[in-house]
């Protein structure tokens, strides 16, 4: 080890010590979510709290099972229990108004997987988490320089279960990661906090979420020029479902790019909330960042709240955001019906097509059926 490397290491250690000290106060001082907190304004935290309490009352120690498939030689799955490095990573991860909940999650740390992906994946690595009670898994995905990887995470809950997951994703220089999260918790409640740290690679991230109450916090941090993050989401809500999505596209370095497309089809009495923010740090010049939230409302009781934000502190930036909410286009419906497709099916087709926009862009091509 050279002297420079040794100093760098020592400095990193010192920073970590400091961070851990800071984080202690962070968790001690954190306030549980309430609706006066801007980040939880429309999210109905009481629904999650009730679900959590009910699940715990039913069975205090229940949790779920995890499995990994197709990891092969390209990735090394690691068990989390007693892994202090990973615990510290989780301790340092940012949240969007959920520090107190992350503190609780840390107390149950130990479930889930860490994947160190060092070779191109031949077929998608599948991580599956299942529960019918309370389950608090953590996922760590680290992609080595230049490696191309595809990971599919599937979270299945049955009955009135509660899931609360964290995900830390790190992508090294020149790496490419496609990662999709498909969560179906049925009648249960589900929350996931994701931190993507992009050190110079390309990341494509897709969420497809379904549950009685679902909250997503996705924080993408971009540290080098030429790094790219694309965030997609496609969801269909019905009944009394609540989907509360919060995103951050944080550009620490100029010359980087990010794109976000979140689409929801909202039916019945369901509510979709999107609160996103693009932050371009001072001197992160020449950044390209886009953000788009599109909603299709199908019933007179469906509700959306859309809060797309921008905070631009740099120059030579190309940034835009858009939000649109509208009913299904009658012209499209008429066109399909005019070809003999019954109205209900035509509606399904148009809604699927509306969402396919996001999933197709995630997959990077249009798939033939």
């Amino acid at each position, binding site marked *: 080890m050279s002297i420079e490397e040794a100093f760098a290491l020592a400095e990193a250690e010192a920073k970590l010590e400091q961070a851990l000290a800071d984080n202690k106060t962070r968790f001690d001082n954190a306030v549980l979510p309430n609706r006066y907190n801007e980040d939880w304004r429309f999210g109905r935290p009481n629904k999650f709290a009730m679900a959590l309490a009910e699940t715990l009352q039913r069975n205090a120690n229940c949790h779920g099972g995890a499995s990994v498939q197709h990891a092969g030689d390209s990735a090394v799955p690691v068990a989390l229990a007693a892994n202090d490095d990973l615990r510290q990573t989780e301790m340092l991860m940012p949240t969007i108004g959920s520090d107190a909940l992350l503190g609780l999650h840390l107390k149950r740390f130990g479930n889930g997987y860490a994947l160190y992906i060092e070779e191109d994946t031949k077929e998608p690595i599948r991580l599956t988490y299942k529960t019918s009670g309370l389950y608090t898994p953590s996922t760590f995905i680290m992609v080595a320089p230049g490696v191309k990887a595809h990971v599919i995470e599937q979270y299945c809950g049955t009955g009135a279960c509660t899931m609360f997951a964290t995900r830390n994703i790190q992508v090294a220089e020149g790496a490419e990661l496609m990662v999709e999260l498909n969560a179906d918790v049925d009648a249960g409640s589900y929350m996931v906090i994701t931190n993507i740290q992009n050190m110079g690679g390309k990341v494509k991230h897709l969420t497809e979420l379904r549950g009685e109450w679902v909250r997503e916090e996705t924080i993408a941090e971009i540290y080098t020029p030429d790094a790219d993050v694309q965030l997609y989401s496609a969801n269909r809500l019905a009944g009394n479902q609540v989907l509360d999505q919060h995103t951050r596209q944080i550009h620490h370095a100029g010359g980087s790019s990010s794109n976000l497309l979140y689409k929801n089809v909202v039916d019945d009495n369901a509510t979709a909330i999107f609160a996103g923010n693009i932050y371009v740090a001072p001197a992160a010049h020449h950044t390209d960042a886009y953000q788009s939230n599109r909603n299709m409302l199908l019933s007179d009781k469906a509700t959306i709240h859309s809060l797309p934000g921008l905070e631009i502190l740099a120059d030579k930036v190309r940034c835009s955001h858009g939000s649109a909410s509208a009913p299904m286009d009658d012209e499209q419906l008429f066109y*399909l019906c005019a070809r003999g497709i019954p109205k209900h*099916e035509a509606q399904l*087709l148009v809604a699927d097509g509306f969402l396919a926009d996001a999933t197709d862009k995630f997959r990077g091509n249009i798939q033939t059926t």
Partner: protein
Amino acid sequence: MSLIIKDLYARVKDGAQILNGVSLEIPKGQVHAVMGPNGSGKSTLSKVLCGHPDYEVISGTAELDGQDLFSMSVDERSRAGLFLAFQYPVEVPGVSNANFMRAALQARLPKGEELDAVSFYKTMRSTMSKLGMDTKFTARAVNEGFSGGEKKRNDVLQMMMLEPTYAILDETDSGLDVDALRIVSDGVNAMRAPFRSFMIITHYKRLLDYIRPDVVHVLYKGKIVRTAGYELVEQIEQNGFDFLKTEE
């Protein structure tokens, strides 16, 4: 068996009256052309027949092989055999052409019967090649990002796949170059049959040179004012629609 329109009055919903007593009969096996200056109600007629929600029928009837068209929903009319090639085909984002056609064909099958996917794709590909369309269009979203000509061709493709008994072509020739026009016309001509009829709405003789109509109607101010044979097309080509004004 025919398409019979009687004394049809219709207007834009809460707006201007456009059709002022259209009567028309198209028997099976025939090709009828409907011509007329801009704003005479040609596109309105086609949309009213298909049940477009922007228009409402004030009075009059339309029968398709004895069935009352106006008591049927848009999709029922389609499955009863009525097809409209749109003047401006609509873009349907995210719905692939193939999925769209499958859904439309599936809707025509009796309950419980499944469309045979293999023969469906075979038919679709061969029809596309007849129309000079690249097969990559199967995977593309319906009309999305298509050029004007591509959209028109896509509508004709749908017509050939769905095999309607009554097809209305609303200015299908606009936006087509000569080669595309010939390809589209060949497609239509190949479909001409004793059990099928066409209503061709156009401004120009060009299309009617390729698809020879049996009967030509002139629609003016929401009424059929003249009905004759092909010679009427030539008369209009030479003198325009000025004769309508002198007749008023």
